[in-house]
């Protein structure tokens, strides 16, 4: 199984901290990969926070295909960060030839369109790029969104970090939020798209566990939204459910918890909104999760979210100090980056709560 984590800080920090959070948890994963999503960037992209940032890994042919596509569709390239990679042959990494992190100006016509239209356009562009690169394995597009950067690779997390020089604080790669995962992918093929965190339209999510209702979730989601594709990992469905509840249905976030782990009918009956809960449960029965799962999510406004399955079969712990809050599969990760924190303030997310952490580092525990 994987180990997951997230860090939110009042000041931008480098991925090195995320690695320090994850590496002590190595025994829980098999070092088969490393992935992170950074949001609210500083460093190289600090002046382009409102411009969509394309994160991808590809072949040389892939770059040509993407360049042609972007030009054809009226995108104008602004800034780019090309990671300086370490070509040491002894590193355990299945590197792609090229890594691209670029910001673009939207085609002019979209300057006058609504926010929703721009969001849809960015999604469609990412889906088309993904499709384009999938032919002959020319590459992987992970995210295309303002102020969001995604890096994923197959291999030993330590070596991946060395390859990308993530151990050095070169102050070009900084963010106030990082969602991170080291993985053991015992169940399915080790493919890049199967590595969490997953991303869609500003929503980032990673999960730990086994989604036993994957088939049910997936069968419904396929018809809910054109962006709900891939399903290379059974945890992708949690992202789509989150996106569906918040972005499509526009329901308050606590209803995400009601959708994925509905209350027992007799518990729900006691609630003032019993009728609403009953309706939601029945209408979205296919989005329930019933396996052992812990979910860490990040919303478009950078709020971090922590929820567990209803049986609390996968633990997660939240620790903090004055300037930084971290969520981690295992407490040893927190000990590495927050050794002096007040342990009594650690929170072990329970099966009936949803925890949010906002940009002021306020932790809210909402009881289902």
């Amino acid at each position, binding site marked *: *199984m994987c180990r997951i984590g997230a860090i939110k800080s009042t000041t931008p920090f480098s991925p090195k901290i995320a690695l320090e959070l994850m590496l002590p948890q190595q025994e829980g994963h098999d070092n088969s990969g490393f992935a992170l999503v950074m949001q609210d960037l500083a460093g190289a992209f600090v002046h382009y926070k409102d411009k969509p940032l394309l994160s991808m890994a590809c072949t040389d042919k892939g770059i040509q295909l993407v360049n042609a596509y972007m030009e054809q569709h009226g995108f104008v390239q602004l800034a780019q960060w090309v990671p300086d990679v370490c070509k040491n042959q002894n590193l355990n990494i299945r590197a792609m030839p090229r890594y691209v992190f670029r910001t673009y100006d939207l085609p002019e016509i979209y300057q006058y369109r609504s926010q929703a239209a721009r969001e849809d356009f960015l999604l469609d562009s990412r889906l088309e790029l993904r499709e384009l690169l999938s032919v002959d394995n020319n590459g992987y597009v992970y995210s295309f969104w303002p102020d969001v950067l995604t890096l994923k690779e197959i291999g030993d997390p330590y070596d991946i970090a060395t390859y990308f020089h993530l151990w050095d604080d070169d102050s070009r790669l900084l963010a106030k939020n990082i969602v991170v995962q080291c993985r053991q992918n*015992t*169940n399915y093929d080790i493919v890049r798209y199967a590595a969490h965190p997953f991303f869609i339209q500003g929503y980032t999510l990673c999960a730990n*566990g*086994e989604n*036993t*209702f*994957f*088939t*049910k979730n997936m*069968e*419904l989601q*396929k*018809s*809910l939204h054109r962006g709900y594709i891939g399903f290379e990992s059974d945890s992708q469905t949690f992202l789509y459910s989150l996106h*569906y509840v918040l972005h*499509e*249905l*526009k*329901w*308050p976030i*606590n*209803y995400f918890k009601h959708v994925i782990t509905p209350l*027992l*009918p007799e518990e729900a009956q006691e609630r003032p*909104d019993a*009728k*609403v809960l*009953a*309706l*939601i449960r*029945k*209408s*979205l*029965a*296919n989005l*329930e999760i*019933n*396996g*052992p799962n812990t979910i860490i999510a990040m919303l478009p406004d950078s709020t971090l979210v922590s929820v567990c399955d*209803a*049986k609390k*079969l996968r633990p997660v712990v939240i620790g903090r100090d004055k300037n930084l809050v971290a969520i981690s599969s295992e407490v040893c990760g927190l000990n590495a980056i927050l050794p002096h924190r007040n342990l009594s303030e650690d929170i072990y997310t329970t099966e009936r709560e949803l925890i949010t952490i906002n940009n002021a580092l306020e932790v809210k525990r909402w009881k289902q």
Partner: protein
Amino acid sequence: METVTTQDITVNDLDFIIHYNPDICIMCGSCVAQCSFNAIEVAPQVRKHEPTQEGAKQGHKKKILFVIRQKTDLAHACVGCGMCVKVCPNQALSIEANPESRKNLLARTQGVIKRGGRASSYSLRTLDKIMVGRISQMTDPALDSERHTFDLRAPLGRILKAQDLPLKVDGQSLSLEKNCPPVRWIYPLLFSDMSIGAISTRAWEAIALACAYLNEECHLPVRMCSGEGGMPLKLLKSEQLKYMLLQIGSGHFGWNRIIKSLPLMRTDPAGIIIKIGQGAKPGDGGLLPKKKVAPHIQAIRGVPETALHSPPTHQGLYSIEESVQKMHLSLNAAFGFRVPVVIKCAASLTSVAVYNNLLRDPYHISGGFFLDGLQGGTGAACEISLEHTGHPIVSKLRDCYLTSVAQGLQGQIPLWVGGGVGLTGQAAADCFKLICLGANGVFVGKILLQLLGCVGDEHGRCNQCNTGKCPTGICTQDPRLIKRLDIDRGAEAIVNYVLTFDSELKKLLAPIGNSSLPVGRSDALITSDYAVAQKLGIAYAC
């Protein structure tokens, strides 16, 4: 050579042969007296006599004995019910099924064969080729069926797409702007439609009693369907009505009475079920023979003493679709849109089209699609329909479920299936597999009767439910036979079976790591039959 009248019928031509041991028979006559089919008699038998000295002088070489003898005419053929064996104090009788029977052929010289029970096409059972093969081992923990809380509820009623729910965001919560179609949240095992008339008042009462007990004492929200023909006024006016689905069949029997008692109802029924067809005899309509239309049945149904035929379809308007639509609408309206109205059809090659029609209906009037497969039972049918019409339930359920998945409409009209559920005695396993294939719940009928003592089976035993001579008092209105059924013992057997069902269902949920019903979790199933795997879209294993 001795002459033989070869066309005479003898016991060898019948389905069951009675073996009789005169040495231990005490000639009490109980077996003959109780046989409701009049299949045995006391008859004289000539025996060779071992003479005493005195007798020999008089030349007596034979003697006459009275024995129990099986009748050999077709009208009185033994049906193998075994009541004589039960009643004999000395076990002087035993019954043997006769594989060489010619009865099936010979009986057809006397007209169309009618009978009850279910089809004998037992070999078609796909459920027995399916196993629960996705067991939680390392990747996720199995649950403990004794310790974890399980949530075994299934919907009955029309469910709307999430985006169509009339919800308004109100700060951090959602509020309901207008009413939605009624949906009940019930146990995934439903007692199927067997009318008072088809079964005896006692049998019906035993089932109703079990249903009430399961709800009130065991907290399992099991629902029961009235069957066509209505129910006693007392029950219509009682609180227990909430456990009942009222059925409207194509004969519309009893509806006058139900509609008239609407103002007297203290509570709403669980649902209304419009019956289009029955899996055991699709397209054959209903039949209640005159023999079973006793005075109390006449009263409940509002009919004179006559054979009652329910036509094969709901008659009347321009088309059956229109008539069903109108029925749905008027029944929804009659109960103030507070009661789900569902429809029951026999599984057929056309089921997907029917389900699609219901799913796409813009008025959201149908609250459930009940699909009845060919191994369901019936109180009376022509044998030709029983044995040669119908569609197995498993693939048809799967077809319906997958067609709803393809349109993103899964779960909106709950799928309830039946027809042979529990045929091997293991209803929980059948139910679980059907749920994984897309059913929301299952309905059972025949096994309830078997729990009450019915001895009929799919190998030809008894199945005389149409004759009014049911030897167990279940399918008859004859007061002497009805008394054979002990209501309390019958109800207790049903309750205990359902409690076992509940535990067994959890025993299957636990190893796949689920605490709520795995509707559509086809990934939990495997089969070693490649064709079945292909058809159902489940994993092939060998």
